[in-house]
C-alpha cells in the first residue's frame, strides 16, 4: 500500500500509467466486440478478462483499492467462469460460419459514433469537475463498511433480499418437476 502511494505520488508516472491502462482497456474492448481474427465467443471472453483487469489498474490509479479488488474477484473470477461454463454447455459450432452483416455494422457504427460525438460535445461544453468537494471517504474497506452499514443500511438490505429472491426464483424455474 505504501509503495503504491509512493508510486502514485509522483507527477509523471500516474499519467503515463493512465494512458497505458486506458489504451489497453479500449483495445481489448474492441477485440471483445469485433475481433478480426476470430469469431469465437471464447476469445471474446478472454479479451473481456483483459479489459476488466486493465480497468482494475485504472481503479488502482484512482486509489479505489477495494473497487479494484472487487473488480478482479467478481468479474474476472465469477462472471468469466460463468461465461465459460455457458460456452462449454452450449453448442457454438454455427457461430464460426456466421458473418457480421454489413448493414448492421455500418448502421451500428454510425449511430454509436453519433452518440459518442454528442456525449463528448456535452463533456466539452459543461465543466463536470467544477463544484467537486474534497473526497469524503478513502478507497479502503473501513470507510466503505461504515457507510454501508450505517447510512445506507436499508438499500443494502433491500438489495440483498432482491438477490435472495432471484436465487430462489432461479431454483424454482429451473427445476423440471416440482413436487
Amino acid at each position: 500500500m505504501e509503495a503504491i502511494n509512493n508510486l502514485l505520488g509522483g507527477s509523471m508516472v500516474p499519467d503515463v500509467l493512465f494512458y497505458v491502462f486506458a489504451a489497453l482497456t479500449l483495445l481489448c474492448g474492441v477485440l471483445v466486440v469485433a475481433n478480426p481474427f476470430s469469431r469465437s465467443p471464447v476469445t471474446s471472453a478472454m479479451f473481456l478478462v483483459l479489459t476488466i483487469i486493465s480497468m482494475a489498474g485504472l481503479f488502482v490509479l484512482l486509489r479505489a483499492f477495494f473497487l479494484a479488488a472487487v473488480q478482479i474477484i467478481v468479474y474476472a473470477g465469477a462472471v468469466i467462469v460463468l461465461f465459460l461454463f455457458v460456452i462449454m454447455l452450449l453448442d457454438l459450432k454455427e457461430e464460426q460460419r456466421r458473418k457480421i452483416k454489413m448493414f448492421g455494422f455500418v448502421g451500428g457504427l454510425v449511430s454509436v459514433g453519433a452518440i459518442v460525438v454528442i456525449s463528448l460535445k456535452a463533456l466539452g461544453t459543461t465543466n463536470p469537475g467544477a463544484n467537486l468537494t474534497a473526497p469524503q471517504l478513502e478507497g479502503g474497506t473501513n470507510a466503505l463498511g461504515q457507510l454501508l452499514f450505517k447510512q445506507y443500511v436499508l438499500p443494502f438490505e433491500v438489495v440483498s433480499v432482491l438477490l435472495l429472491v432471484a436465487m430462489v426464483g432461479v431454483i424454482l424455474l429451473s427445476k423440471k418437476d416440482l413436487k
Partner: protein
Amino acid sequence: MQVGLEHYLVVSFLLFALGLLGVVMRRNLLVIYMSLELMLNAANLAPVPGRS
C-alpha cells in the same frame, strides 16, 4: 496535460459506446451479454474519478 476527471470520463464514454456497438452489431446472445457487461463496467468507471 494533467490527467483529470475528463480523461476518465472520455474512457468511460468510449467503453460504453463499444459495448453499445457490440449489442447492436453482434448476433450471438452470449457476445451480446458480454457487451452488456462492458457497458456496465463503463458505467462503473464513470463515478469513481469524481471521488478523488
